[in-house]
């Protein structure tokens, strides 16, 4: 079990190193397969850990293994420690499993790209970083993994670095994430100051002794990092831009794994969040706001990937909502099912993009169903799962969160309403996308590409993962059915620190059923509305009301706001500093030093006259002085 955990962590790192060191001496194909195999090996390690953990008693399902003490000082030390417990193993399985499928998909998607090796090295690096994040047993190692996934995200978003939009998007993602890293670091300082350690167990126990303000600040710092990494409002503007990266990157990093790291953090650090109820409520509130805003913005997007990106943002809002309310098990459940169907949607979209030679504008696409029937089926499965139609997976996970919301009192009911509205919006934008792209007569673009492809809808490396994920999207939810059986929830229970059950709220069976009925009903209503607007008569893809459209198209003006608040003042400040400080003082002083040295050298050089007699005179004068010195200094 422990060995499994180490293999899980080390395999992708080894893959990345191997590809990097081999350079161009291996073929691009080989690099791709090395990467894929290393991630699947990690999955094998994760399965081994899972099995090992299953074999233990419920209370003993936790093991910390330390390779060595990484940072050791007198009263504070941090080890290279991995934690194997139900939560980390769940994440390991999701990351390495879905990750493996996506890397396999990339083998086909990225085929022919001249810099394939770099891509696969980065993908392996990312998987390693994400695994490090979820497997770490202390906050410091988690922060290391956190930073590394940010780095991998930056590298992969900007993979096609000849495109300035990609480079700009990568920078934007990185800078916003760094903000989150900073707040997290501050929270860690507070934890060290108060408890003297960063190990999870010890830190959580020590957190009990913190004052309310301090624990609020710590929770706020952690929430800042989670919000940045998971692209929730207000640190969300980087996620749509991140779609500049290749589609598998969007599937892996910006749907299934990295953006869920925030949710993982909240669940892992739940003792701290439980001690700071106002911050937990804030987290839930931010989740609700995000899920609504993202859903609205998704309605006007015309790029196929951006619709799915906003959908991701919205669904993570659901997860934050659940985690903020204390329904940790349900939040994680939705994380898992979302990984399945969101990756599926991205990959199916990738098949469409690949078929249409890179076109991503949905206004140019229609009737793709005829050219790619199986992709259509996969996309349909993913969409139904996303909207939460039974018996697909999304139904079970999303509705459990909503049920927890209504069981949480007044504030919870407000969030519940938001969640229901979000379900309506989800149905609307998801099926808008499906109907616009796949239904109707084939567009010009689609007809042009119809003749080109002879090998079906894509190579097996691309269609197999899609098929696997489609199956998972269907059956993945059957692992927890509200009110009937809860193996998933019970599996995660042991990570509750000092309590019997992990979830703070337990909805009643009646609440579960009512919620499910309402949610499904609203989802179907959304689908019907989509059909009315976009399906049969193919009306405008974008709504007509100008102000609404403008606001939504500008993504609620967040980018403009940040530009005015942060970017412009920073530019003004740097310009002013350059004029008044750098050029005169620093540049001037350097020039001054060099000029001074040259002048001094020139002055001294005057003594080199070449006259023999002046030299002799100098010697004579020197001797005269020296005689006096020698004689007077006895």
């Amino acid at each position: 079990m422990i060995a499994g955990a180490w293999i899980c962590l080390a395999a992708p790192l080894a893959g990345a190193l191997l590809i990097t060191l081999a350079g161009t001496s291996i073929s691009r194909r080989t690099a791709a397969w090395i990467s894929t195999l290393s991630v699947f090996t990690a999955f094998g390690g994760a399965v081994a850990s899972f099995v090992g953990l299953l074999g233990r008693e419920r209370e003993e399902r936790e093991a910390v293994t330390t390779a060595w003490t990484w940072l050791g000082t007198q009263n504070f030390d941090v080890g290279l420690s991995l934690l194997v417990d139900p939560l980390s193993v769940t994440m390991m399985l999701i990351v390495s499993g879905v990750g493996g499928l996506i890397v396999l998909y990339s083998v086909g998607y990225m085929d022919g790209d001249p810099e394939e090796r770099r891509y696969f090295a980065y993908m392996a690096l990312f998987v390693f970083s994400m695994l490090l994040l979820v497997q770490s047993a202390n906050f410091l190692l988690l922060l290391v993994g956190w930073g590394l996934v940010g780095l991998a995200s930056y590298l992969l978003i900007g993979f096609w670095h000849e495109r300035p939009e990609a480079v700009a998007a990568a920078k934007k993602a990185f800078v916003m994430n760094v903000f989150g890293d900073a707040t997290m670091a501050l929270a860690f300082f507070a934890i060290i100051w108060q408890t003297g350690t960063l190990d999870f167990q010890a830190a959580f126990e020590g957190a009990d002794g913190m004052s309310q303000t301090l624990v609020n600040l710590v929770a706020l710092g952690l929430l800042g990092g989670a919000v940045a990494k998971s692209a929730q409002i207000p640190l969300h503007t980087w996620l749509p831009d991140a779609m500049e990266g290749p589609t598998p990157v969007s599937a892996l990093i910006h749907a299934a794994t990295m953006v869920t790291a925030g949710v993982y953090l909240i669940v892992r650090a739940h003792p701290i969040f439980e001690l700071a109820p106002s911050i937990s409520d804030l987290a839930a509130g931010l989740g609700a706001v995000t899920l609504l805003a993202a859903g609205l913005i998704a309605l006007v997007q015309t790029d196929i990937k951006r619709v799915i990106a906003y959908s991701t943002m919205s669904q993570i809002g659901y997860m934050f909502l659940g985690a903020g309310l204390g329904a940790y098990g349900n939040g994680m459940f939705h994380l898992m099912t979302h990984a399945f169907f969101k990756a599926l949607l991205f990959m199916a979209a990738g098949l469409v993009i690949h078929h249409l030679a890179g076109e991503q504008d949905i206004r140019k696409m229609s009737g793709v169903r005829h050219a790619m029937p199986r992709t259509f089926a996969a996309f349909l499965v993913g969409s139904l799962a996303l909207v939460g139609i039974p018996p697909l997976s999304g139904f079970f996970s999303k509705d459990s969160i909503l049920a927890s919301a209504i069981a949480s009192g007044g504030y919870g009911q407000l969030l519940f309403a938001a969640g229901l509205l979000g379900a309506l919006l989800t149905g609307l934008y998801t099926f808008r996308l499906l109907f616009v792209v796949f239904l109707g007569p084939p567009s010009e673009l689609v007809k042009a590409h119809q003749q080109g492809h002879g090998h079906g809808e894509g190579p097996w490396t691309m269609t197999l993962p899609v098929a696997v994920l489609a199956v998972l999207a269907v059956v993945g939810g059957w692992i927890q059915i509200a009110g009937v059986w809860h193996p998933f929830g019970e599996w995660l229970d042991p990570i509750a620190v000092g309590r019997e059950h992990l979830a703070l709220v337990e909805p009643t069976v009646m609440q579960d059923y009512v919620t499910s009925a309402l949610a499904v009903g609203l989802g179907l209503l959304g689908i019907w509305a989509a059909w009315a607007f976009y399906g049969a008569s193919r009306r405008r893809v974008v709504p007509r009301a100008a102000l609404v459209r403008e606001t939504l198209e500008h993504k609620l003006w967040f980018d403009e706001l940040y530009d005015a608040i942060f970017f412009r003042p920073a530019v003004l400040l740097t310009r002013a500093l350059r004029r008044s400080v750098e050029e005169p003082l620093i540049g001037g002083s350097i020039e001054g030093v060099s000029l001074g040295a040259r002048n001094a050298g020139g002055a001294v050089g005057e003594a080199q006259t070449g006259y023999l007699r002046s030299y002799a005179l100098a010697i004579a004068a020197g001797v005269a002085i020296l005689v006096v010195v020698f004689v007077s200094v006895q």
Partner: protein
Amino acid sequence: MGNVLVWAIWLLAATACLGSGLAVVTFRNPFFSALALIGNLGSLAVLFLLASAEFLAAAQVLVYAGAVMVMFLFVIAYLGDRTPGAFTGGGPSWVSIGAVVAAAALLVEIVVVIGLAAGDRLTDAAEVERSFGSPAEIGRLFLTDHLLAFEITSIVLLIAAVGGVVLGTRSRAEDEEEAARARA
């Protein structure tokens, strides 16, 4: 009586020494300067004798006045009218003033400062035997106490001889240049 004689000889030799020294520095014609230097060396030899350095006096006359000055005179003769006679005129004036000042300063310094510091120790000469400066004595010391100095001095002389030869040989290019100049 003997003391008075010694004093007289000393004064005569000292005057000759200083006078010939001034002559060396002031004469325009280098030939005369060289001759004045020979006189200087001779008077110094007399002074050496008075200070019980007999062998050195002989060496001074033989080596210095005999060999070195003859070499000087040879070179002066060779150079003929190529030697300039001009004094300091034409060069930077501050050098001349500085030179005089420096020389005067040195003089004053040496006399006054050293005199002040060690004046009373410089008047009582030690008692020495008659063979103080004899060749036997010097020779014995050179081969026993100061053997290293002896050997190194001979090496220096060897190097100087080699250097002199090197500086003195004419190269082929110079020969041709000389011939061309003569034809022109």
